[in-house]
């Protein structure tokens, strides 16, 4: 009986996460506002599982330096580093931040990148790079870049809303934070790209 209840709870949590994912596509503002008041850590576990599934799938179709579980561990370390950076930045600028709210909204904001990595891995499997300068090669490149830009814009919207609801700060302060974060994040991403672990800072 107790086991059945646990199964039902787990299924309900998965359903809630999927529902939120769909709502983040159609009503990102309202959904992020709701997520910022979330308390159920089970949802984060579901997203964590999705990230692990991605790593497992990616290592099956391409060789990587690190096995899937180590890449997942690296993502967790990266997440802790982001949390510390955000906490220190807002503490330094004397802004009160709801870390729990930021934690939930930030993890949900990983959805666009997770979709990008999943889709790119499928494209890698179906249409292996490098692309050529033929008509089809150029057309696919334009499509792929447009797809990447659209997910990047969506990601930026979600990250902005994540900071907006967890710090309750104005546009200028959030934009300033994102500028500083970008200055640190870009060299860090390039460094990880050179180590063949490009996806870590984005997941």
């Amino acid at each position: 009986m107790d086991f059945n209840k646990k199964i039902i709870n787990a299924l309900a949590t998965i359903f809630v996460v999927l529902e939120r994912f769909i709502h983040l596509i159609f009503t990102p503002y309202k959904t992020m506002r709701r997520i910022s008041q979330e308390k159920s850590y089970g949802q984060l576990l579901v997203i964590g599982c999705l990230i692990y599934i991605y790593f497992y799938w990616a290592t099956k179709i391409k060789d990587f330096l690190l096995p899937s579980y180590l890449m997942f561990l690296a993502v967790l370390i990266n997440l802790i580093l982001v949390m510390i950076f955000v906490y220190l930045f807002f503490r330094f600028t004397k802004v009160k931040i709801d870390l729990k709210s930021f934690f939930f909204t930030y993890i949900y904001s990983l959805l666009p990148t997770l979709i990008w990595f999943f889709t790119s891995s499928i494209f890698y499997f179906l249409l292996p790079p490098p692309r050529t300068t033929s008509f089809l090669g150029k057309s696919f490149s334009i499509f792929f870049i447009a797809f990447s830009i659209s997910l990047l814009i969506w990601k930026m919207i979600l990250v902005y809303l994540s900071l907006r609801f967890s710090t309750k700060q104005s546009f200028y302060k959030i934009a300033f934070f994102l500028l500083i974060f970008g200055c640190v994040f870009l060299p860090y991403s390039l460094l990880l790209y050179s180590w063949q672990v490009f996806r870590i800072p984005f997941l």
Partner: protein
Amino acid sequence: MKTEYLLKKKLKEIYLVSPNDLGHPLLTKIYKKTTSYFKVMPFLVVIPLSFGAAFLLYLVLGPFLVKLASLLQYGF
């Protein structure tokens, strides 16, 4: 009683953050107008914008865009 509770909860959620003020009425108006497109169904704006940007990038960068797409494909 339940309706009152739900209404209070909803109002609390709506007023979670105060409206943004960019310091100048015109800037605030532009901000509100722009963000309204991204609050509900953002992909109606984002998809045409992305294709426009990708095509513009192709016109500016030419074959480099193809290299960029390959580079991103390797990065998954």
